[in-house]
């Protein structure tokens, strides 16, 4: 043992204080691993730094976005046309488009995901469950661009157009918010289902048995006991799913077009915050132009909204976890 000789020489020194290459190696490894863990913090800081320097304030010769465009115009303006002359920088149409997509996807994805979660945790036989779960995982693993293609070549021509144009006589545009919302809704189903199922299954069986003992039906137990006692977890999964549909890009870019519109009509083309960024980046952007800086401002808004929702859902989940331990 390398440390043994030194130990004999100096009895007063504790084992911890003696130098040995082994111990040094241990410390170096520990430090290296700590740096790996710290990298995530650095990433967050880098994101915040990049977004802030381009959007909020920067080193004097350059100007940041909010020094070129007033905060008032950005948040209260009703027109978004950075690439036209004169440019308008009112983010309202993009926010509106984003929430249209999120709203539609939430209306489809959240109830469907919750019902599937209830089915998997309360109703299904173990065999049906072991069959459904991998299939849902496949649904979760399909890239967003594939959903976009599905929306453009199936949902719009074979679902929305026959339903609204042929049946109800309402004109439908080739690119519309509805098809984007539907495919994003399908996309978040597996996420809601698996996250909610986890929290539903964590509800102790004794609560269910108590319900059955009092003569409750399966519906009563599921809807009035299991879901309410896992409510915080379910809400957390909803928030995570919604924040994902806010950040969704390619499916929306393909299905819903690129025209910033301040509208609540889901049958016309819209632009969301994410699709604006991708659309501008597809062309050449002049370095240092206000258009380029507007990307950072939009990304900052996007980042703040999703971060807020994620934080809230984290906090809810954390509280919930403590409740049943």
């Amino acid at each position, binding site marked *: 043992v390398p440390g043994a000789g030194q130990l004999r020489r100096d009895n007063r020194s504790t084992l911890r204080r003696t130098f040995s290459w*082994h111990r040094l190696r*241990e410390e170096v*490894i*520990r430090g*290296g*691993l*700590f*740096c790996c*863990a710290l*990298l*995530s*913090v650095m990433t*967050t800081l880098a*994101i915040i730094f*990049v*977004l802030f320097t381009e959007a909020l304030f920067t080193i004097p010769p350059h100007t940041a976005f909010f020094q070129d465009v007033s905060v008032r115009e950005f948040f209260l303006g009703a027109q978004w046309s950075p690439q036209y002359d004169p440019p308008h920088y009112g983010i309202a149409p993009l926010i509106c488009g984003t929430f249209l997509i999120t709203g539609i996807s939430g209306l489809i994805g959240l109830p469907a995901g919750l*019902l*599937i979660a*209830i*089915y*998997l945790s309360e*109703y299904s036989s173990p065999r049906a469950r072991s069959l*459904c779960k991998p*299939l849902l995982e*496949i*649904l979760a*693993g*399909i*890239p*967003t*661009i*594939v959903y976009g*293609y*599905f929306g453009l*070549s*199936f949902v719009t021509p074979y679902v929305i157009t026959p339903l609204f144009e042929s049946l109800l006589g309402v004109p439908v545009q080739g690119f519309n918010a509805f098809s984007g919302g539907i495919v994003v809704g*399908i996309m978040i189903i597996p996420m809601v289902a698996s996250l909610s199922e986890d929290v539903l299954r964590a509800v102790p069986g004794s609560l269910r048995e108590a319900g059955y003992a009092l003569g409750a*039906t*399966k*519906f*009563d137990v599921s809807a009035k006991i299991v879901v309410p006692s896992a409510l915080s977890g379910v809400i957390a999964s909803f928030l995570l799913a919604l*924040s994902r549909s806010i*950040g969704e*890009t*390619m499916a929306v870019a*393909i299905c819903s077009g690129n025209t910033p519109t301040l509208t609540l009509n889901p049958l016309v083309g819209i632009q969301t915050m*994410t699709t604006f*960024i*991708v659309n501008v*980046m*597809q062309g050449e952007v002049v*370095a*240092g132009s206000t258009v380029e800086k507007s990307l*950072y401002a939009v*990304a900052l808004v996007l*980042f703040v909204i*999703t*971060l807020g929702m*994620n934080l809230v859902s*984290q906090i809810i989940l954390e509280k919930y976890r403590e409740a049943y331990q």
Partner: protein
Amino acid sequence: VSLHGQVYERRLIWRHRLGKLFGWLCRWTTILSLVVLAVLLFTIVRQAWGWLDWGFLTHSNSYKAQNAGIMPALWGSLWAVGLTALMAVPLGVGAAVYLEEYSKPTRLTKFIQLNISNLAGVPSIVYGILGFTVFIRMFGLRDRPEKFVASLGFADITFELPLGRVVLSGACTLTLLSLPVVIIAAQEALRSVPQSIRHAALALGATKWQTIRHQVLPAALPGILTGVILSMSRAIGETAPLAVLGVASQLSFAPGRITGPVDAIQHPVKMLQAPFDQFTVIPLQIYSWISDPKPAFEHVAAAGIVVLLVVLLTLNGTAIFIRQRFQKKIRW
């Protein structure tokens, strides 16, 4: 029968009906979502039928739909994800080992943990913006890319600063994007290794690192590998961050101008040059086909999607295989 009993009877029937209805609703929602999956796959396969052949895999893109191929994008995706795995796995597993094995529940640890969960929820496009600023604009420090030559003795590697739209920039962006997912998966795998294994190793006089290196990591390996493969298959499907980087969607060559495996063995230097070469990936190529106004490209896009899904299926199949095979061997 009293009036009370009658009311109870009626309510009971109603409650049972409601319960049955709800059960049906739950079951049919599940079935419906699986039907949607089937319809999605069917639509794509039907559109791609007859367009997917050997020529599609070996040609590069063309303005004529009949001659269009996916070769540069296929190699570009494999290069990008290969490099991503090379960077994300050591960093991610290292971070997970620190958080699970070394860290004490201090405020800093808690902050790092919260930070990782939040990073996993940051929209991928924000990572794209980050990558764009760092690798393409380099914080505005350099206006024009400058060429550098790194002499390795046996070969010269040329690269530019800022890096530009090359494989390495894409891989770094994807690494930052997939790190949180890798860390969380690796943490779960490490957590599932029973404490007794660690205690046994430590009791025999092993150091902390020896315990981790020889006992904990091998035991957690199947779980870690599964998580890594799943996150890499997500990285393959990522489009938005690479589109924001401005990665080309049309190229006529694979990264490093490698024409095939034989060429790569004959000229290994090309392998070193490839990370600094331009590239495109399968999803971006598909996006450019979808955006093409010519209707025939709809079929080409579908064929590209089939290739993408086959690549993903292969990766996921490997993950499942590893999970099944190694989980049986370990019995605590």
